[in-house]
């Protein structure tokens, strides 16, 4: 028998459903003309730099098929790098190279691939295989993030990233997505990555969920999630809420990585952030969004908004 939850219970918990998210938030607060800024990662990067928001360094952009050969030769000077489709969605088409083994490239999973494989990946990106609507796309190559060693034990073969939902400049909910062996190094919750709900007030882990069930330790590294405290938490909240002003999108998912040397950096923005964050936090978004609406009406001050958010959305430990 399939277990279902009653709609009334969901409403009590304040769970945001897909339909309400689309009509009530994305459709209403995210003007379509501003989508380009987040869908095109190059534009996101440029705009972020103009607003003094840190982003991973850009090594190069490939627009045409014939540039691929020259570009891959130039990659020789970098030990590790990341290849992404400029207009990719849902983390598709991202190739992370963490090092070399002679002529071969080592992927984050440890698998070795040759240069031809890298070129094939690039040409797939250009053909639009990973892009919204299958349009022709550009590929961007950026610096590999040397992520904070503190977080290393919480992720298996992948970069743990912090997702913050910001509404009208108020950070509303946050989680860390930790890749597992089962999720194949991807930070995708329905593929078996662990979602760790993060307390907005303190940056401490609230609870961790894998496949909808509570877990206490990482299934591969055995790190205890209860001890997890995200470093540079104030900076992360500040960065997330500044992105709302930068993009003009009211309801925004901000993905942030922590670099060992450079601190929190904006990885990408999402104009249609998913609903899984509610599962990771075991809490609904609707009540918090209503409070955030009030906070935004109350003050225009950036610092004040964050302070009020930390005060309202804090979870008792």
């Amino acid at each position: 028998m399939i277990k279902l939850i009653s709609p009334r219970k969901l409403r009590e918990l304040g769970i945001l459903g897909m339909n309400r998210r689309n009509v009530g938030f994305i459709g209403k607060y995210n003007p379509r003309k501003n989508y380009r800024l987040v869908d095109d990662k190059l534009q996101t990067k440029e705009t972020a730099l103009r607003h003094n928001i840190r982003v991973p360094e850009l090594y190069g952009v490939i627009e045409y098929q014939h540039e691929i050969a020259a570009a891959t030769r130039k990659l020789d000077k970098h030990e590790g790098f990341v290849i992404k489709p400029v207009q990719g969605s849902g983390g598709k088409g991202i190739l992370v190279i963490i090092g070399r083994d002679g002529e071969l490239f080592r992927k984050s999973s440890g698998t070795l691939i040759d240069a031809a494989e890298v070129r094939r990946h690039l040409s797939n990106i250009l053909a639009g295989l990973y892009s919204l609507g299958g349009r022709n796309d550009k590929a961007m190559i950026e610096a590999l993030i040397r992520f904070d060693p503190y977080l290393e034990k919480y992720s298996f073969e992948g970069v743990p990233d912090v997702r913050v939902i910001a509404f009208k400049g108020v950070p509303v909910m946050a989680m860390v997505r930790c890749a597992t062996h089962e999720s194949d190094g991807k930070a995708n919750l329905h593929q078996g990555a662990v979602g760790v709900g993060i307390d907005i007030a303190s940056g401490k882990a609230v609870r961790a969920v894998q496949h909808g069930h509570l877990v206490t330790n990482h299934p591969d590294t055995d790190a205890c999630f209860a001890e997890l405290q995200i470093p540079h938490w104030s900076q992360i909240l500040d960065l997330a809420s500044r992105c709302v002003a930068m993009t003009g999108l009211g309801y925004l998912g901000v993905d942030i990585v922590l670099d060992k040397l450079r601190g929190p950096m904006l990885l990408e923005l999402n104009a249609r952030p998913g609903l899984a964050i509610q599962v990771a936090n075991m809490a609904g978004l609707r009540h918090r969004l209503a409070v955030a609406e009030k906070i935004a009406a109350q003050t225009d001050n950036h610092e004040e908004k964050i302070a009020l958010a930390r005060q309202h959305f804090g979870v008792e430990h």
Partner: protein
Amino acid sequence: MMASRTRIGLIAGGLFFLGVGLTLYKAFILGFPLLPGEYREVWTIESKINFKPTKGPVQVDLKLPGSLAGWVILEEHFASSGFGFTVVENSDTREARWTRQQLVDSTTLYYKLQAYRPTDSELDDLTPPTIEKPRLEKDQSAAMERLIGLLSEQSSDTASFVSLLATEFNKDSDAQDHDAQFLLGTFDEPEKVVLLAVLAHAGIPAQEIRGIRLEDGRRRQTLSSLIEFHDGDRWLIIDPARASMGMPDNFFVWQRGNGALLGVIGGGDSSLEFALVSNRLPAKTVTSMEQMAHAYALLDFSIYALPVEQQGAFKGLMLIPVAALVVVIMRLLVGLKTSGTFMPILIALAFLQTTLLTGLSLFIILVGAGLWIRSWLSHMNLLLVSRISAVIIVVIFMMATTAIISYKFGLDRALTVTFFPTIILAWTIERMSILWEEDGWKEVLKQGGGSLLVAILAYMVMTNSLVEHLTFNFPELTLSLLAVILLLGKYTGYRLSELYRFSDLDKPT
């Protein structure tokens, strides 16, 4: 948010009530049937007149059919480009007349009519015409006398006499009576003419009935003749070609009595041919269509106003909004994942042609085999556009192979495989294949199964006879459907799938 909701609400309400209102008006004031009810066969007869013009002015006369033996003519349509055209009405007959001063090339004129037969009524009674005895040579007259004498002895009444006579004329020549054989030989005319001559000689009033043997989908059908004769009491009909008594089934009566149907002045080599199509329409609709063909031109939103071929096309088109509603409900209310938003509709449309089970198995075979071949292609490192083009070609080859193999095994149904949209199949295979590589086969099954489920539901709705009847006869209901779709576009409640997705949140923490 309130404002936009109210606006949508008002628009949707307006559309909904407009659609329902028009429907109710047509149903209760104009008397259109709301339910399909009994079906009736309506025949569309397209007559083609071919001829080669000679010098000088051309005049073509075609006797038009009257409403005979219970046949009712619903609509007539003439095509006569470049010709002067009139319908000449005499006291009891009508004639179409095409005229032209000069003509060079051989030409085809068209006359199309729609008719159905609500009651199998008899032909009207008619005073028997005076008999004109045929002029005969001596030996012909003698042969006729002997034949009449022989058959009279064997028969009990006029009907059995005529029946025996027709049977005699239909026999193979070696089994035939010598006199009958001699008569057919010397007359050098069609059997029915000889038959009429014998009947006249025997003093039995008789005449021809011209008409068309109706066969659905038949092209190049020609005129047929029946013979009716008076047995002193009433008129009886015999089919000379089969020597069977009574009006044959599916015989459209064009003209009663002798005389040519087609007259061409200033032309030669003329021929009259017919193309026939039968449609099954609800009986009540036929009646109202007939009554309102002219009466309510302004209010008649019915697709019946269009020519037959376009009617068929619209019949399919009007079903698509219903299928779209199914997709909207399954995605917004149930939360089913499908591969490509409206791909299920296209598959459902293909199912309409192939029927459900055949279509399903064909689809699964094609996509399955396509995925397998596509996995080879993915090793070849091709650019996207040429890879998809390659998949398209593979799909076409697979369709041909399926058709040929199944035909060899006598499975004619599988020939309908050509109704699957090739490009859509290719894209489906491509997407599924990428989905497989990136998210695993579970996701492929989930989305493929979702698409098929929606397609099956859409198919079942589209083949429902009530839905078919309503969309075709009350196209204005589509406005109400649009209203429902608009309202669903503002639905912010939970999807059924979310009740499952968030079911773990129920636990106390």
